[in-house]
């Protein structure tokens, strides 16, 4: 199982804002096992989904060449629990973007109701983590396509986003060697 805690992007505006959804289903192990008798989505995994929404938004700004990691949760408030059948809608907005990281505000809604809100700091791994690769580029691009980033994503001019050249090259090389 991949560590994917969002299902699809609905909106993706380069360097500004992204909206992703996560459908909560009773068939998911973590829903049933986390708190037996009271099935709900663990808050920690909701935060992970919010961080993935924001992390991909932040990473795209630099063509996914920076290695973006969740560094700090400044503040988090949960207003409600997410139950099977709910669809969580995560909205990430970049507050500040610097060479060494990014500050984001991310909210989670169920319908019109605010479910959670988080202030988070994402960091770019620096030279101390030389040689540490978080993703293989072809695999990463497959995930971005699966999330619909290139179906809904737009750049600063409102033009459709396209995958970065290094990822397309890796995908091409992978396809050539695939059985």
């Amino acid at each position, binding site marked *: 199982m991949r560590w994917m805690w969002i299902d699809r992007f609905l909106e993706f505006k380069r360097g500004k804002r992204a909206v992703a959804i996560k459908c909560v289903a009773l068939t998911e192990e973590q829903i049933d096992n986390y708190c037996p008798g009271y099935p709900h989505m663990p808050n920690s995994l909701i935060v992970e989904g919010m961080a993935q929404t924001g992390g991909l938004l932040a990473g795209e700004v630099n063509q996914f060449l920076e290695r973006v990691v969740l560094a700090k949760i400044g*503040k988090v408030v949960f207003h409600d629990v997410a139950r099977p059948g709910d669809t969580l809608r995560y909205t990430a907005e970049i507050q500040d973007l610097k*060479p060494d*990281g990014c500050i984001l505000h991310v909210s989670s809604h169920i319908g019109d109701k605010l479910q959670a809100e988080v202030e988070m700091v994402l960091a770019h791994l620096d030279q101390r983590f030389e040689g540490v690769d978080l993703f293989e580029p072809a695999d990463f691009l497959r995930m971005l396509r699966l999330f619909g980033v290139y179906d809904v994503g737009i750049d600063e001019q409102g033009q459709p986003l396209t995958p970065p050249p290094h990822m397309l090259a890796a995908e091409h090389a992978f396809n050539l060697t695939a059985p």
Partner: protein
Amino acid sequence: MPPSNEEVFEKVRTALVDALGVDDDEVQPESTIIGDLGAESIDFLDIVFRLEKSFGIEIPRSELTPEDVLTNPAYVQDGKVTPEGIAEIKRRMPFADLSKFEANPVVTEFGNLLTVNDLCRFVESKVQDR
């Protein structure tokens, strides 16, 4: 009109309380940001963001924490910052009181240098340059 010293301190205090999750009364002028308030490296990104927003200023990270000097072999020998390194830090951080650090310039002790007062002086200089 530039903010008064008290206004600067209160805004800096708010930024530190929000970024570090400490209590108001823990943030005193002489408190060291890393040693007393427990800030870690990544917290400075958060602190800088809050100060920039609160005061309408821009803060290059290298002006607040000269990590590149402290990790540069040209400025560090046997775990201590050389006189050239001290001079570079003074040039970068004219707002900081380096007298204690100069007496024993061990790199690992640098974190205990920057105080809330230093941060206030730094912000005041940035507000004046605005």
